[in-house]
């Protein structure tokens, strides 16, 4: 069936696409597209909140001395900035993409458990409120760093209980979301859509969902132990009662390392969709991409100790975690090489989604390099908890995960809204972001090499110059995101109709078998994939 004929077919179906209007549509929705939209707007809201915290941090660090905030509030800012960005911005954004795209890309009518899908979303809202509201309770928000290490965290007040509850709720939401995604992918694929024909985005999310199910309960266990240590007289992490603070670190990072891949694997999927589309050439090494993704996921369970090289593990522990960590460079390298081979001898154009994807490729690679440097245990020991680490994980999470989110939003906006965004402004958003980002974070490598610890509100004079640059860059980057907000709203309101296939090389089901914009209900009859 041709796309146009199919579009007509769906126009007919649209008559049946009645749904409640106004607030009820959004509160009671079980539609994967509506829920995807909710997740994406929620994520952007949290992104702005976390961004404001980041800018407060950078404003305080603009020069030595304490000018704006006091140290305990500063510690709360760094802590909640991390929690909000990880759990409030990046993860929900990917769940939003999963909701919108997975059913359309595998030819399913909706997610497998639509009502649970609704609940998954409405759980993250109170969790976010708990996190942000903890700033306003006596004692201020959690100030122990996002890793929540005891015994420091035991010293604080009610905000810690709020944070623990928030983490529990977010964990429940993530687990339900993951069950939904796995069930959808394994059971609702259209006839002919074999696993090895699935778009890479679906593959990466399948693997991500398994990671989530494996590690979110571990985090829940860790924070539950914190809770009972605080209130019920247990001593899991208290040496005086036979416990061990180091055990928390082991448990936390057993969750924490897979967690960073949870944030980056869907990014690999999005970039693997966009680069072939704009190179007008099929993805190079599809099978090896799938295997590389799976390898990274499996390795992520045996590298957590590289966050703990300064704890004083035995030499054998340090060596094991060093070797395992270095191994991750192999499948990650395969991915980078595959993307470049996809670009090679293509016929490329550079609209905004492609710009962000190439930006991702360049900057994520730099984040990979600094990861390799940090994998070398002795080097890590001298750089542990310095700004070098801060630079490293912002290269992989901001110019990695976040840039891929931007790329994906620009890529699928026409499909989602039916309208075309303003290309000039989109490109401006990219260039401002990439320049601001690099001014903000590249100098942090230098600060770390020179020995500046992270999570300090004030610093010695030799760090002043690069910190000033970093703050300037952060403000450029931060305010550029308002351009993004404008572009998206302008796109929705413009009425500038997108073509049926705005991207010449896009070839997944949502482009080839569905009209633009995608109607409310899609694939009520499954397509047949050849």
């Amino acid at each position, binding site marked *: 069936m041709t796309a146009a004929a199919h579009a007509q077919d769906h126009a007919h179906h649209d008559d049946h696409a009645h749904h409640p209007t106004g607030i009820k549509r959004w509160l009671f929705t079980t539609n994967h597209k509506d829920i995807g939209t909710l997740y994406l707007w929620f994520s952007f809201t949290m992104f702005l909140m976390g961004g404001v915290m980041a800018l407060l941090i950078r404003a305080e660090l603009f*020069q030595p001395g304490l000018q704006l905030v006091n*140290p305990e509030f500063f510690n709360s800012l760094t802590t909640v900035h991390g929690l909000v960005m990880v759990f409030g911005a990046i993860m929900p954004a990917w769940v939003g993409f999963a909701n919108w795209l997975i059913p359309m890309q595998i030819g399913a009518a909706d997610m497998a458990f639509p009502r649970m899908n609704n609940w998954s979303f409405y759980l993250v809202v109170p969790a976010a409120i708990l996190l942000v509201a903890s700033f306003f309770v006596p004692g201020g928000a959690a100030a122990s760093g996002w890793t929540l290490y005891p015994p420091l965290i035991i*010293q604080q007040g009610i905000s810690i209980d709020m944070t623990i509850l928030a983490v529990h709720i977010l964990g429940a939401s993530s687990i339900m979301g993951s069950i939904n995604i796995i069930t959808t992918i394994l059971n609702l694929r259209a006839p002919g859509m074999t696993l090895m024909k699935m778009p890479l985005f679906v593959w990466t999310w399948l693997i991500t969902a398994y990671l989530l199910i494996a590690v979110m309960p571990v985090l829940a266990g860790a924070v539950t132990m914190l809770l009972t240590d605080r209130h019920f007289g247990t001593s899991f992490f208290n040496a005086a009662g036979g416990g061990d603070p180091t055990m928390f670190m082991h448990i936390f990072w057993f969750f924490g390392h897979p967690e960073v891949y949870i944030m980056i694997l869907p990014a690999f999927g999005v970039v693997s969709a966009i680069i072939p589309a704009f190179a007008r050439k099929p993805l190079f090494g599809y099978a090896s991409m799938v295997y590389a993704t799976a390898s990274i996921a499996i390795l992520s369970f045996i590298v957590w100790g590289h966050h703990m090289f300064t704890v004083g593990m035995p030499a054998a522990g340090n060596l094991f975690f060093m070797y395992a960590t270095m191994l991750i460079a192999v499948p990650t390298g395969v991915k980078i090489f595959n993307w470049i081979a996809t670009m090679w001898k293509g016929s490329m154009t550079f609209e905004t989604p492609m710009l962000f994807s190439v930006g991702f490729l360049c900057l994520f690679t730099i984040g990979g390099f600094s990861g390799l440097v940090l994998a070398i245990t002795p080097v890590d020991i001298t750089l542990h908890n310095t700004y070098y680490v801060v630079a490293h994980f912002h290269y992989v999470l901001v110019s990695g995960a976040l840039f891929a989110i931007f790329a994906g939003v620009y890529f699928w906006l026409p499909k989602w809204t039916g309208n075309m965004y303003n290309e000039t402004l989109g490109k401006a958003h990219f260039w401002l972001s990439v320049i601001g980002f690099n001014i903000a974070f590249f100098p942090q490598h230098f600060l770390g090499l020179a020995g500046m610890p992270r999570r300090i509100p004030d610093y010695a004079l030799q760090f002043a110059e690069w910190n000033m640059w970093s703050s300037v860059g952060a403000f450029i980057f931060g305010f550029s995101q308002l351009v993004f907000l404008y572009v998206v709203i302008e796109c929705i309101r413009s009425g500038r109709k997108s073509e049926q296939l705005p991207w010449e090389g896009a070839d997944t089901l949502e482009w080839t078998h569905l009209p633009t914009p995608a109607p409310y209900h899609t694939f009520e009859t499954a397509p047949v994939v050849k």
Partner: protein
Amino acid sequence: MTDNMGANMLRNTLRTAATAAAASASFAASAAYDVDILPPASPIAQQIYDLHFAILWVCVGIFVIVFGAMFYSVFTHRKAAGAKAAHFHENTTVEIIWTVIPFVILIGMAYPATRTVLEMKDASNPDLTIKVTAYQWAWEYDYLQDGVKFNSLMSTPRAQIEEWNGKGEKKNADYLLEVDKPMVVPAGKKVRLLVTANDVIHGWYVPQLGVNQYGIPGFVKDTWFKADKPGTYRGQCSQICGKEHGYMPIVVVAKSPEDYATWVKEQKAASPAAQLAAAAPAGAAAPAEDPNKKWTADELKAMGEKIYAANCIACHQATGKGVPPAFPPLDGSKVATGPKAAQIALVLAGKQGTAMASFARLSDTELAAVITYTRSAWGNKAGEVQPSEVKAARKG
């Protein structure tokens, strides 16, 4: 968020903007754009330095190849340049090549790194052992063989730090990286550190010596360094440990073995009492330490003010007003104006679940002095506490 913070923030945003303009004007003259690991000052630090450069060059090599290929492709294989898309999408041979080559490079890197890891972990046969105990927010150094023990606190005055209400005093050259009493070690000798903590996790981090070791309450971890030559090496606490985390620097002074011996002698020659007094930050009491001595209220108060400034001021503030609700005021507080015994017990034991740590590490006289100070400063008029009372409370 505390009440005054919002106002502070607004006021200071403007000031920061003004300073920014001024700072950028003077920027070229004062710039210190370090881009490298600090010069190594121990054999391990040297190895770390070399490892870092080795891996950096590997990365640079890969960078040139990867980015070269990518940008060549970006510039030549573009539609605007008339490129027609090829259709290849698989090649098992290249996949194997670019899996195996990185693997081989990694083995090449792992070998020297492994040697250094093993060497770093080998703290055996030290010439000298120092037990390092971290407190919120001070370091205690206990020289196990030489019998010297003291606390090391940041010596940068708060007037240089706090600029909420206007520009602070001119900052010292070693702003935030200076202490009242540095750790002194003999150069060229293997110094083993036994690192632990009293309250929360801290990190003893001196980059130039190649040491970064968590101090974990209830556990003792060892590490070691050997300073190449006499000199001063600075570092900071590397693990977030509460509000003063940014203000617990570490200074290590390496002296020639002869000078070190002299330093130890000086420390020992001083009577234990004087040693204790010297150990007390800001040199509390010069007179002999005798817990049974009766002091006058004024003597205690004068001594206590200094001890307060060194140990208490960060949280409870010079004004005694604290930073509620996290750090309660002492001025007019129930504890500082109530029964003596309760206050002594609180200061000795700390308070679980809050940032109030145990101060049992201070001497009886010092504790009596600082408690007396808090009971008679500001608006408080609750009378003095004698060292003998602290001593009795410790036993009970």
